[in-house]
Each structure stands twice: as structure tokens, then as C-alpha cells.
């Protein structure tokens, strides 16, 4: 008989920690610190009763994500799918759930769309959209306003819709579905239904664009890749799903958390107003500090590999704890302190690491720089309208942040 990999939970490990320590919604779960010190490669249980390795140290996280023997292919046996959230099912799963060479081939079809030069050219447009939303915000002075709804979500949502060629008028539809896909608490069948609904929506959109491809990412994919036989209709729809979902809640939640942190740290906010040139480094530090990806990335080992003194065997899954790596004191001095002038903040792994590192990171950076700087400049007296413990934090979601952020000024 061939050797079977033991998938039962050996010592009843705990699930992936998600609760921040009491009193500080900005810090990652306390368990991560203990694990980094005592058992940096440990076991966790997944919702279906199987188990996975959990990596909590920065060096191990980079080693795992930088090594393609840890596969991203979600169809491989042993991939830790249980409890994973995201935009695509196993069929037409999008390139982030593939390995080279398919991953490379598909990713390269869109890399130029997100390159630094292209994104920098969008900066004035992103500033214009932000200013418009801030004008609308200004008119609501005096009443408590939800900053997530008024600014944090619309900016990235408008931008990605524009780039992809998805009508922003449909934002209620795709924002609702994205929210379901990224929820940790809804039932698997409800998530599958949301996935199906998003697939149908994008399927129709791609069909319409096949007749009339516009000057946008989906239009270009159709003309340059689909009509030449490189990819299929379904693959265009999978691109759309991936980019639409990835472009939404990530940046939106970073904006919300960053705004809240700066409102609670007036000296830092004042320093950024005085020295606007610090904004780039401040955004890197906010990315490191908040590390909003709370549910992965995940990999499966394709061969036996030793990491951090542990043997991970072929067919075993690994969950990588981004928030833990970014608070590793062996890399970041006084890691729990927000220091917008930290010299090595950009070594963070908030965008992941390795060949799957976030494709949209240049866009996310520009959006964050523009929105945060504009908000600080235009609303210097903005403050939360409710106490911290009344702000609903997203411990129920794969992307951390706040569900809503009532502010006043």
C-alpha cells in the first residue's frame, strides 16, 4: 500500500487566530507572538476538520512564498482550501491559483496594465475622483458620516471599475457579492451561490464586450488574447472576477484603518501635513502595521521541504500569517509601534512575496497616498464619531478593517 498522508488533526490544534488582543484592534492576535517565539511552524485546524501548517516568522514566510515547490495550485491534492475565501472556484480559478508556466503566461497578459508608469499616469484621475468624493463629504459637515461608504470603498471601486470597463452603476451588485466571497462566517453554499452570481454577472458583461470591446483591460484582453485564441471567454471572465474582487476590499480597508489610526494619532497626522514628502514611507508603514490579509496566502508542498526546522511533507498545506511576519521583531525594530519614518518598512510582506506578489500593488500605493494625503489636508479636524469599542472591526472577514467608520469634523 502506498503511504497515506495523515490528515487527521493530531493534537487538536486551535484554528487560525483572528481576534486582536482586547483593547487594541490594530494589533494582530496575541497568539502570533507566542507562536513566533515557541513554535514558528505550527499546526492549525481548518473548518472541515483537516489541519494545515501555519508559518508565523518573517524569514519562514519569505522562504515559503519565494519557493515554487510550495504550490499555489488549488486543484492539487492537499491544498488547504477549507475556510479559504476569495473570488474564484476551482474551475476557471484565475492565475493566482496556478503555478508556472500557466501562471506566468496568464499574469503577463495583464502585468503592463498595473506597471508603475501606467499607474503613475492615473494619479491625476485618482486625485480628481478623491476630490469629488471629498467635496460631497464636505457638504455633509455636522452629521456623522460613514467614511467607508463615503470614501474608502468608492475610490478603489471606481478606479478598478474604470480600468476593467465594468459599469460602476452596478457597484451595488459586485460590492455585495465581493463582501460575501470574503466573509469568513457565511456558509460554504452561500459563498458558492455568490460566486455563481458573480460569474453570471461577469459572463454577461464579457459577452457584451465581445460585441463591443472598449478601451479598457477587459476590452484589450478580448481583442488581444481572446480573439487570437490565446484564452477563452471563460478565462476573460475569470480575469474579471479576480481583478474586480482583488481591487475592492483590500485598498478600501487599508484606507479605513489608516484614516482611523491617523485620527487617533494627531502628532503623526500633523507631521504628515507638515512634511507631505513622508507620505510614501507612511503608506508602507501603514501597510506593514495593519497587514490586512488575515487568511493566507496558502500553499501546498509538492515535495518534502524543511522550513524553520520542521519537515513539511509533500501534500501538506501551509497557511502563511502575513500580520505575524510584519510584526517580527527580528526584522522590524519595536514592531508594534507605528513609525512613519521607519527605514525598512517597505520590507513588509503585506503584498505577499514571490512570483504571486500582488499585481495591483502600484495602484494600491497611489490610491492610498492620494486618499490619505487629501483627507489629512482637507479634513484636519476629522475624528471618529463613536468610541473605539463601538467601531465594528472585521474579525469575520478574510480582509481585516472596519465594516463602517462613523466620523465627524
Amino acid at each position, binding site marked *: 500500500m502506498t503511504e497515506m498522508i495523515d490528515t487527521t488533526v493530531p493534537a487538536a490544534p486551535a484554528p487560525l487566530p483572528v481576534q486582536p488582543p482586547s483593547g487594541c484592534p490594530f494589533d494582530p492576535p496575541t497568539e502570533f507572538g507566542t507562536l513566533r517565539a515557541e513554535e514558528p511552524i505550527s499546526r492549525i485546524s481548518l473548518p472541515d476538520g483537516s489541519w494545515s501548517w501555519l508559518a508565523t516568522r518573517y524569514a519562514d514566510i519569505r522562504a515559503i*512564498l*519565494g519557493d515554487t515547490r510550495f504550490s499555489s495550485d488549488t486543484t492539487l491534492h492537499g491544498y488547504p482550501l477549507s475556510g479559504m475565501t476569495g473570488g474564484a472556484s476551482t474551475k476557471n480559478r484565475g492565475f493566482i491559483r496556478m503555478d508556472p508556466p500557466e501562471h506566468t503566461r496568464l*499574469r*503577463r497578459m495583464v*502585468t*503592463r496594465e*498595473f*506597471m*508603475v*508608469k501606467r499607474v503613475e499616469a492615473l494619479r491625476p484621475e485618482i486625485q480628481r475622483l478623491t476630490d469629488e468624493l471629498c467635496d460631497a463629504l464636505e457638504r455633509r459637515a455636522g452629521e456623522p458620516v460613514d467614511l467607508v461608504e463615503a470614501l474608502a470603498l468608492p475610490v478603489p471601486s471606481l478606479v478598478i471599475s474604470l480600468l476593467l470597463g465594468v459599469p460602476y452603476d452596478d457597484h451595488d451588485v459586485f460590492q455585495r457579492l465581493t463582501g460575501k466571497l470574503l466573509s469568513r462566517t457565511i456558509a460554504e453554499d452561500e459563498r458558492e451561490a455568490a460566486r455563481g452570481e458573480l460569474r453570471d454577472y461577469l459572463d454577461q458583461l464579457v459577452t457584451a464586450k465581445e460585441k463591443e470591446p472598449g478601451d479598457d483591460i477587459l476590452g484589450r484582453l478580448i481583442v488581444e488574447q481572446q480573439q487570437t485564441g490565446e484564452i477563452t471567454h471563460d478565462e476573460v471572465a475569470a480575469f474579471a472576477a479576480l481583478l474586480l474582487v482583488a481591487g475592492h476590499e483590500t485598498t478600501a480597508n487599508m484606507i479605513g484603518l489608516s484614516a482611523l489610526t491617523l485620527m487617533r494619532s494627531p502628532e503623526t497626522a500633523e507631521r504628515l501635513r507638515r512634511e507631505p514628502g513622508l507620505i510614501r514611507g507612511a503608506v508602507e508603514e501603514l501597510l506593514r502595521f495593519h497587514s490586512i490579509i488575515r487568511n493566507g496566502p496558502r500553499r501546498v508542498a509538492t515535495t518534502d521541504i524543511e522550513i524553520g526546522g520542521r519537515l513539511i511533507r509533500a501534500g501538506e498545506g501551509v497557511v502563511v500569517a502575513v500580520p505575524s511576519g510584519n510584526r517580527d521583531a527580528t526584522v522590524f525594530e519595536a514592531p508594534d509601534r507605528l513609525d512613519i519614518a521607519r527605514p525598512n518598512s*517597505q*520590507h513588509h510582506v503585506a*503584498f*505577499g*512575496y*514571490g*512570483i*504571486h*506578489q*500582488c*499585481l495591483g*500593488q*502600484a495602484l494600491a*500605493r497611489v490610491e492610498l497616498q492620494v486618499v490619505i494625503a487629501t483627507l489629512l489636508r482637507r479634513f484636519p479636524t476629522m475624528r471618529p464619531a463613536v468610541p473605539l469599542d463601538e467601531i465594528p472591526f472585521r474579525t469575520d472577514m478574510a480582509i481585516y478593517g472596519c465594516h463602517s467608520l462613523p466620523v465627524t469634523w
Partner: protein
Amino acid sequence: MKITIDAEKCCAAGQCVLVAPEVFDQRDEDGVVVLLDAEPPAEQHDAVREAAAICPAAVIEVQE
């Protein structure tokens, strides 16, 4: 300092361009890294080392 790149491995996320724009650029067709200066002057060395350290795909090799 001498830089070599393995552009085949590049995943085009552009970290190198942000850190050392005088030394690295991205190809218009696909965003893959372009080495503008394989032997950059001393004032670029820190930025180049930083780019090599944060490049997610280990594309950039630096010989001092």
C-alpha cells in the same frame, strides 16, 4: 557594483522601479524589468541593494 537580472523570473510588480528608477525600468509590453544601468554610480548603490532585497522574485543579483 555590477548588476545582473534574470528577467524570465520577473513578476512585474515594479518594486525595483519605485526604489531605483534610474537603474530599473519596466518594458511597455508586459511590465517586465529592464536594466538601464548595469554598473550604476556609487550614489545609486544603496537603492540598488534595497531593490534586490525587496524584489519578490529574486530577479536582481548584485556583485559588489
